[in-house]
């Protein structure tokens, strides 16, 4: 009886923490990459929800599954990946169950992705103006002329220098920062409800990076769009994400409101990430990782156990659950670091 009450209380708490129905709820999403010898689990039953208008950060190192997640949410995992289970519930429907033509109409229209390294992602033989306008023509069904007008307005909104000239420019004539703005324009021209920013500022100069970030934040706010902000730089998430998730080897290791994550980090991996950015040598030494070699891929146990300075026998035996250690603050660890 008491156990039941406790569970009920937890559920109530969870509802208090996230009062409204989520705009996007990723439930137990699993993606695998078939290889020549073994099938690699890139996402291992990942769950995460985003409220309307909310910006959720997702931090992870290279190979953690960031891009796989960004693309799998729209049902197109990177090749040769395959979605092996789970749901993406958007506006009450599991969109992964929708027939392809239905899902196609949501992509770029209601849910859109801002991709990294955009110069390779743009069609090399079409002008920027045409490519942005194509989004409006395909998804909003507007006339060619109206689409071009919208594309021009959008180029101005993303503050590209000399937008008249850029309308007729080809992707190879753009700098990395300009191409990034173009991709943002393409992602936002249909005013999507949900934006996935997939490491959108990687490979840009720091000053340009800051401009792009504030631009993205402003446009999302103007649009009332929710955003999943995926990055490898945990520092960036501190600026404008209301909640932050830490991804490691296809699993969320810690999920917390921004203040909790940065002031009271609980997972050793989060601490390691924060320590790497820290200016305190003492902290960096305490949480430095002795070896960053091949990640443990053993099925049992915690996937971080091989690199974790706190790892004990149990960590290699049993996978830790994603436990709620304080309201809205989850950590997947047998020995979460709590205030001491």
């Amino acid at each position: 009886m008491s156990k039941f009450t406790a569970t009920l209380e937890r559920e109530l708490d969870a509802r208090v923490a996230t009062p409204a129905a989520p705009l996007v709820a990723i439930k137990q999403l699993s993606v695998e990459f078939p290889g020549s010898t073994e099938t690699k689990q890139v996402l291992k039953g990942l769950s995460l929800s985003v409220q309307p208008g909310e910006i959720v950060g997702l931090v992870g190192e290279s190979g953690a599954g960031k891009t796989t997640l960004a693309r799998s949410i729209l049902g197109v995992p990177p090749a040769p990946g395959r979605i092996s289970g789970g749901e993406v519930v958007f506006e009450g429907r599991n969109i992964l169950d929708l027939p392809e033509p239905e899902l196609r109409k949501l992509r770029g229209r209601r849910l859109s992705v801002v991709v990294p390294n955009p110069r390779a992602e743009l069609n090399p033989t079409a002008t920027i103006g045409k490519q942005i306008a194509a989004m409006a023509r395909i998804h909003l069904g507007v006339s060619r002329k109206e689409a071009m007008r919208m594309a021009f307005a959008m180029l101005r909104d993303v503050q590209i220098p000399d937008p008249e000239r850029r309308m007729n420019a080809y992707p190879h004539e753009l700098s990395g920062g300009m191409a990034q703005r173009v991709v943002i324009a393409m992602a936002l021209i249909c005013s999507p409800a949900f934006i996935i920013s997939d490491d959108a500022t990687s490979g840009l100069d720091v000053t340009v990076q800051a401009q792009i970030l504030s631009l993205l934040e402003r446009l999302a706010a103007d649009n009332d769009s929710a955003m999943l902000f995926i990055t490898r730089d945990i520092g960036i998430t501190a600026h404008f994400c209301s909640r932050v998730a830490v991804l490691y080897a296809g699993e969320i290791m810690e999920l917390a409101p921004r203040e909790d994550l940065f002031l009271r980090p609980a997972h050793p991996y989060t601490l390691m990430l924060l320590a790497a950015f820290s200016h305190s040598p003492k902290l960096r030494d305490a949480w430095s990782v002795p070896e960053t070699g091949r990640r443990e891929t053993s099925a049992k146990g915690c996937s971080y156990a091989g690199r974790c300075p706190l790892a004990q026998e149990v960590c290699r035996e049993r996978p830790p659950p994603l436990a709620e250690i304080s309201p809205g603050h989850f950590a997947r660890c047998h020995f979460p670091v709590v205030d001491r």
Partner: protein
Amino acid sequence: MRVLTYLAKRLAFVIPQLVGIILVSFLLVKSIPGDPAVLMLGPTATPDAIAGLRQSLGLDQPLYMQFFIYLKNLLHGDLGTSWQTTRPVLDDLIQRFPATLELVTLSLLLAIIVGVTLGVYAARRPNGWIARLSDAYGLSAGALPDFWFALVLIFVFYTVLHWAPAPLGRIDMVVIPPMPITGAYTIDALLAGDLEAFWSALSHLALPVLTLGLLNAGPILKMTQATMEKMLDSDFSRYEVLSGVPQRLVVRHALRNSLPSVVTIISVLYGYLIGGAVLVEIVFSWGGAGQYAVQGVLNSDIYPVLGFVLFSAIFSLIVYIVVDLIYVLLDPRISN
């Protein structure tokens, strides 16, 4: 303007290129054993007569002198005379080259339609049945000899089914060929408004065009398929899918980006087929330029051979210049 300066530069290179081609082919043709004077006069000729003919043909001159005489005549528009047809080579080629060109161009169009269509569909589903069919098709198209395939088509469509006319030339014996304007019977017949001649010419084209078109679709198919697979797998195609662009448009954009490679293989085939169609020309008694040249080689009749090489070289150079211009139009990244 940029295009014009480019064209001028390319054209400036055409003359030395042509002189080089003529020199090489002149030496090669001259090295073929056999004395034209002996062949022309027949087995009963006296040595005196042969020596006299050799002198009048300039065959007693040293090789380099013969070459300069040939070049000098070329500048005056004289490509020599064929001793077999006893007509100026230029006149013969003006009549025969368009016949080959008409055949080859239509065959190439068929090959493009078949090759590009199959290639695109095969690339859309790399493991689908069209892809497997394309693999089998590409392999057999490369393996079948064209003259054999032509004979099979003649057997089926002429001998058995009687759908096609007899493989004896470009037009029915009883139909008067149209006044030569372009030299291509179908076009000339249409220009003259002579529908009977048009249909007759078209029906005679059907089997040779089918032969050359179907067999030469192989390389175009393979190139389209490979390039399209690469393009559909590229970042920008994936991004388009991610942005909700309909598959039809994704494929169209990928094809647009594949065109430079496809155009390259088409241009190579075009130049090759001018001479490569000769066996099919012989099977259908086409009377084309390739057939003319081969007869020249077999009978030590060198001027038809050299004339054919010259015509083919000029044609190939034109094709390559046009293709280079097409590249500039197709790919905005090529600016110079």
